[in-house]
């Protein structure tokens, strides 16, 4: 039961993007299409789950002073693997995501989870926590990219969803649109949470 809680807290209550406002850079940068967002979610989930697993395994043998440095080396190793894998097997996606895959290293969600959770908890709990956080990150990115792609190009994952009558609202796939959509989504998220509390 407690483990289940670790898994689902990241979806809504501690959603890394909407509640904790972490990992903004990929959330804004790669959500101009659903396809890019899916690639990013996959890469982040792989890195987060992988490094949470390793960190929770090694947590007792790492001296406290070099804790962060070790975590960063672990994270960077997983990020490089994700980056090289995408470059080898999904060259188009890798090109579209550009520097944002290597930048997962400094994504605060990942280091934050190692510091706050995986370095203090057992392997099972850490992996579930990582999976849950990846889900939360995934939900946020899917929401963002769906809104932006549908409004900005009239398509979803490349498929036409709005008829030819629709004139794409192109600002949505520009950087400015990313800020607007995320701003309004966070506003909506807070309002819903407040309404349920009150």
């Amino acid at each position: 039961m407690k483990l289940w809680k670790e898994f689902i807290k990241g979806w809504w209550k501690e959603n890394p993007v909407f509640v904790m406002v972490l990992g903004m850079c990929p959330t804004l940068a790669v959500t101009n299409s659903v396809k890019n967002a899916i690639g990013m979610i996959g890469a982040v989930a792989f890195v987060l789950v992988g490094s949470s697993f390793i960190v929770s395994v090694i947590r007792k043998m790492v001296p406290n002073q070099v804790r962060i440095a070790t975590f960063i080396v672990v994270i960077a190793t997983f990020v490089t693997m994700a980056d090289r894998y995408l470059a080898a097997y999904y060259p188009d996606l890798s090109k579209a995501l550009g520097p944002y895959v290597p930048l997962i290293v400094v994504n605060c969600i990942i280091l934050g989870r190692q510091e706050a959770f995986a370095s203090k908890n057992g392997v099972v709990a850490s992996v579930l926590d990582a999976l849950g956080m990846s889900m939360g990150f995934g939900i946020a990115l899917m929401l963002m990219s769906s809104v932006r792609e549908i409004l900005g190009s009239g398509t979803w994952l490349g498929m036409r969803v709005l008829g030819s009558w629709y004139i794409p609202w192109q600002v949505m796939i520009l950087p400015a649109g990313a800020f607007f959509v995320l701003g309004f989504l966070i506003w909506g998220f807070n309002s819903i949470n407040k309404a349920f509390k009150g």
Partner: protein
Amino acid sequence: MELLVIFISALLINNFVLHYFLGICPFIGVSNRLDSAFSMGLAVTFVMTIAATVSWLIYYLLLVPYHLEFLEIVSFILVIASLVQVVEMFIKKVSPPLYQALGIYLPLITTNCAILGVALLTVLKKYNFIETLIFALGAGLGFTLAIVIMAGIREELEFADVPETLKGAGITLITAGILALAFMGFSGLV
């Protein structure tokens, strides 16, 4: 001429915050007061320029000759993390007033994606050493510009009647969106 294009492009057209979305965390976190935003901007510019040039040297003098390009990410992040420490110690010793002003922002900089972003982009764009230096300087000043403008707006925003649930990150992001629209006016400048 090419150097000027790189500088203007990094400063205004492809502004690091408003176009590449790099350094958003401090952009949202530290942009509520003008003076602290300015200090943060300068600290970032300073570390960014050093980090980009050192990473460039590591990449082209160490990784490329030994075909170790795949260690790019690991080595860059370690260089940046240790560099921030060294810069912090150095400033503390050489100029206590500067340390007073920038000190508290330096640890935050390690996880500022703009620093690693510059290092990665210079490799991606195949810049040479001088171009890297100019690019990093432009990017840092562009970050400073964005964060200072934002802080100026947010100081005014304190007097505005913003809905409770929109306060904080929400309104900051929407303001940033309007700023990004304004910065689009710089496109085509070069």
